[in-house]
């Protein structure tokens, strides 16, 4: 089959797109890094397609950057109906004003009904400014998205206090309705290689960024998070196998290394790393107990953790009573495989 013919048909079709009920379409502001589409952009397209289905609308993507034109292919494969590309060397690395100016112009010309961005540094910088300038509403960090058909309103759940519970919010009167999508909260769409399209190139003259990068902040270290407030704790116990390996795991996961009193007695950790009612009481989002049997004092000091993974060879180990995921195995092997699985094997 002659692919150029298909391209032509698609391109023609696009010219004649018209959204039902004067909508304006569901837009995704695409984000890319290192020549690849950011996963959250694909996830956002998945959300956009579901919404567009219910709205009877089309999905569009705005793709801004330097040398990004070819990435439009991935966007089409993910299921967008049209792509607007602004390809200019002034658009990379990201800075706010050039991107903002182009998107504001674009959305003035083609007013969207819904705009999705990733809840990333870039999405977080752009979304509120776009919403402010275009008079839209904005919901950040959406973890579920659905459509309330009355008034074509997008409803989204946002996590409160890091996910203790969720508030369901909507901006029924706002157009556009802006949302940023929590990375990883939604499945990415199937990439259909047969789907193709011809992106529309937008001629741009990016403005100057208002914020200049002076240089690297040499020697700057953000204040260290105290163990009691750490969001991820990797705790080592006497049955951990290779303690150095557990330390590597903590590093790979960007977590804090800790342990029980047994680990302290054995010299594996310092006194201020002991998780125990007589030491530090922790309540992280994730607690990974490696080779810890889990006496009362230890369990009492970590039971506030939101999610606990325990690895211990003895199936009767009391730590399993407090664990969401229980792995009955020799920790050494599991940790090694885990380092590989999270892509941090050395």
């Amino acid at each position: 089959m002659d692919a150029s013919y298909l391209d032509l048909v698609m391109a023609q079709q696009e010219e004649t797109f018209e959204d039902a009920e004067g909508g304006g379409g569901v837009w995704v502001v695409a984000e890319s890094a290192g020549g690849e589409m950011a996963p959250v952009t694909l996830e956002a397209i998945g959300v956009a397609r579901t919404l567009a289905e219910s709205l009877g609308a089309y999905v569009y993507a705005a793709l801004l950057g330097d040398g990004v034109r070819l990435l439009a292919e991935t966007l089409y494969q993910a299921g967008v109906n049209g792509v607007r590309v602004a390809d200019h060397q002034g658009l990379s690395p990201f800075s706010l004003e050039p991107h903002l100016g182009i998107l504001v112009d674009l959305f003035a010309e083609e007013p969207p009904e819904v705009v999705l961005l990733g809840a990333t540094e870039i999405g977080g910088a752009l979304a509120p400014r776009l919403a402010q300038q275009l008079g839209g509403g904005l919901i950040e960090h959406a973890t579920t998205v659905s459509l309330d058909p009355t008034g074509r309103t997008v409803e989204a759940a946002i996590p409160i206090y890091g996910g203790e519970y969720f508030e369901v919010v909507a901006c029924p009167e706002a157009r556009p309705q802006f949302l940023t999508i929590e990375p990883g909260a939604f499945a990415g769409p199937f990439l259909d290689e047969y789907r193709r399209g011809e992106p529309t190139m937008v001629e741009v003259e990016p403005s100057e960024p208002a914020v200049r990068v002076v240089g690297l902040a040499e020697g700057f270290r953000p204040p260290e998070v105290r163990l009691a407030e750490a969001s991820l704790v990797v705790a080592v116990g006497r049955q951990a196998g290779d303690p150095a390996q557990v330390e590597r795991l903590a590093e790979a996961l960007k977590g804090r290394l800790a342990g029980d009193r047994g680990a302290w007695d054995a010299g594996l950790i310092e006194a201020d790393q002991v998780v125990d009612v007589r030491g530090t009481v922790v309540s992280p989002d994730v607690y990974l107990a490696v080779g810890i049997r889990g006496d009362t004092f230890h369990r009492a000091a970590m039971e506030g953790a939101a999610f606990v993974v325990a690895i211990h060879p003895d199936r009767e180990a009391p730590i399993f009573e407090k664990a969401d995921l229980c792995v009955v195995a020799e920790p050494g092997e599991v940790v090694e495989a885990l380092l590989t699985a999270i892509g941090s094997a050395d």
Partner: protein
Amino acid sequence: MDFTFSREAKALRRMVRTFVEKEVAPIAAEIDREHRVPMEVMRKLGEIGLLGVCFPQEYGGMGAGEEGYCILMEELGRACTSTATNVGAHIGIGAMAIHLDGTDEQKRKYLTPLARGEQFAAFGLTESNAGSDAANISTRAVRDGDNWVVNGGKVYITNGGYADVVTLMAVTDPALGARGGVTAFIVQSDWTGFEVAREEDKMGIRGTSTAELVFDDLRVPHENVLGKVGEGFVTFMKSLDMGRLTLGAACLGGAQAALDWSVEWAKTREQFGTQLAQKQSIQWMIADIATELEALRSLVYRVAWMVDTGQPFTELAAMCKLYGSEVASRAVDLAVQIHGGLGYSRDYPIERAFRDARIAEIFEGTNEIQRIVIASRIFREHGVRISP
């Protein structure tokens, strides 16, 4: 009657609690273990104004009254009895005497740096032969022109090892005894003739300095006489009244901590398949501590209000001290029982709290003396004089 704390009091409590959580609680075990006065904490308390909590703003204080002072002591007492003791000796008795009876000049010179924590104070009353029997002191001050020459010594002086300023009681006329023969002086520890002889090694409150002081021809200028010559006993008794109230507040904090730990442990610990909280024996202990704690809280803050509104409160302050120290001792005792082996372990704060609590029944006048003070007030109303 309105038993709610004012917004100002709540804000002060929040400020103190934040400070205590960040600066005091984390070092409480360490200063106990190392037998060290946390000077860095004392200085920081001074920098943010808390050491002047009840003193007027014109002398570098906060002007938060006795209510504010009790809040400070309660919150300190929750985390660290040693720090509460250091602060209590500094503000509540050491500097308090200057606040109560000092001249404007003395307040400018001494109270202001004390309120700001630039200098620290101790209260020099107890002697080897006169403790609770405060009238029987023997440190002697003899007039010599514009000076007084002091000879003698004091024992068990809290903050004695590092105080810059000591409010000192000495006999100026042996013939007159406590009524008319005893005078209060403000002395500086950097003067010749002032010596710290030794530091006590104690069972509890190990993060404090309890020193023996020796005065050898210590020359004190007459302008440093605190109050009137011969009226020192009155000055000191007034200071002790204040100290007893706020010691009660510190005990309240200590008892509250014991209750908090116990409740937390009763929630956590399981025995015979159920949590401790489900066991009636434990419930009764918790209920008893909580009830006494509330009674103490009402007493302490009512007396603070009486002080702030200028009412007499001597026997009530004695009750704060007496009841507070006993409630705190009972609370930590029950906490040890509830915690079992953990309560007896040096790794957990209960053991320290248990050792620390005991002193409150002894210092600032033993509990027996408090009972005498209370009883003598009661009998006096009935026309009976009690001699101790």
